[in-house]
Each structure stands twice: as C-alpha cells, then as structure tokens.
C-alpha cells in the first residue's frame, strides 16, 4: 500500500465526520440566534445585555457541542494532512448545510443558491484529487 493511499484511508472517514458535525453545529447556532432578533449593534452595553441570554440558549450549546466535535476532528486531521487540503476537502459540508437548512430550518434555497453550492462542491472534487500532504514521506506513515 502506498504512503498516499494509507493517508487517504485514515483521512477520508474523519473528513466525513467533520462534514456532518460542522453544518449541524451551524444549523443549531442559526436556530438559536434567530430567537434573539437581529444583533446589529456593536455597542458594548447592547452586547452585554444579549450575551447572557445567548449563553442560556440550549440550541447555542448544542451547536457549540457539534462544533467542538468538528474542531477536534479537524485538529486530528491537521496533524498529518496539509491545511490547504483539509480545509477545501471539508467544504463538502456546504452541500450538507444547504440540505439541513432546508430540512431543519425551513429555509427556501433558490436555484441560484443550489447552483453556487454545486459549483463549490465541484471545486472540492478537484481539490480532493490532490494528495493530502505535499511533503510526502516527511510526515511518516
């Protein structure tokens, strides 16, 4: 088995986990934040007024938990794969986020937005055909 193939075998399952956890976290955050109305002020008193309410939201904490799971998976990936490979590869999550936003938040996704997300995924496909690490054997097996 080649070094590159071994890298792919341990990289792809972790990428799939992060592709689900990341979007799910953002969907929960979106659901939680919509409950407070638009936070359009950068004034400290306004932010201090809304911060405790945000910290008491179950959806926000659920979102943070999913994003922490995503973050740990991402950290593990970065110990052997290039950042410039991992970041675009996990962008498959943009397809997941569109589907979850539609199913869980009832957002209407226009054909133009689906097109944009599809183009992003095509970009990801191109990136996915490049080797995870540009430094070859230097990172070990």
């Amino acid at each position, binding site marked *: 088995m080649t070094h590159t193939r071994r890298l792919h075998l341990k990289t792809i399952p972790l990428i799939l986990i992060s592709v689900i956890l990341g979007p799910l976290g*953002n*969907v929960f955050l979106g659901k939680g934040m919509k409950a407070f109305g*638009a936070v359009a002020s950068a004034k400290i008193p306004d932010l201090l007024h809304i911060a405790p309410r945000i910290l008491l939201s179950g959806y926000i904490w659920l979102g943070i938990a999913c994003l922490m799971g995503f973050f740990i998976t991402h950290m593990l990936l970065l110990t052997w794969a290039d950042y410039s490979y991992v970041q675009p590869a996990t962008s498959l999550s943009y397809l997941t986020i569109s589907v979850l936003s539609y199913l869980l938040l009832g957002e209407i996704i226009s054909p133009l937005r689906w097109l944009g997300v599809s183009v992003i995924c095509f970009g990801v496909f191109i990136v996915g055909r490049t080797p995870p690490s540009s430094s070859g054997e230097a990172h070990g097996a």
Partner: protein
Amino acid sequence: MALELVLFFFIVVAGTGGELCVSRAMKSVGEVHDFRPRSLLAFVLQSLRLPWMWMGIALMALGFFSLLAILSFQEVSFVVPVSALSYAAGAFGAKAFLGERISRNRWIGIAVVCIGVTIVWWSRK
C-alpha cells in the same frame, strides 16, 4: 450591507488566521498515532502549552462571535457558503505562513470554489 461585509471580513480573516495558527501548533506537536482517550487528552494538553494554539483560539473566537452576530439576521444557507471565501485566504496563508506547496490542481479547485461563493452571493435576499 456594510455590517454584513464587516462581519464576513472577521469570519474569513480572523477564522482563517486562527486555523493557520492552530495548524502550525499541530504540526509542531506531531502526527497522532494513538487514538485512545488518555493519549488524545495528553495530546490536547500538550497542544495547549503552545502560544500559537492560544493565538489561534483567540482569532477563531473572534470569527465565531462574528458568525453568531450575522446568523441572527441572515440565513444559514447563505452565511456558511459565503464564508467559503476563507479557502482562498487559507491557501495564500498556508503558502506564506506554513510554507506548504500548493499544486496547480489545488489552485484550480480553490478558484472554482470562489466562483461558487460568488454565485451564492448573488442569491442574497
């Protein structure tokens, strides 16, 4: 519109800068071979001793709070794809800051991702 642009700037630049710092810290800790909980905990504690890790966490926190603010008035299916602009920022940053070699195909993929982001921006409500 101006507020949205400022928040997207923080999401993209601070978020990407934070990930680059974390990536630098991770590379200095070394590759993970042992996935048992105790070993993973030791790995996390070891990474938390590095200044790059804390700088990365601070920048990522700024990006995260900007994300929370924009999610209070914009759709998730719009905000998250537009934040994919961080791919371009990430590639330039990885080349300049981490010394990664980025192949021509990877650049092409990143360019296509950016075209997709532009199309998603046009779908803004």
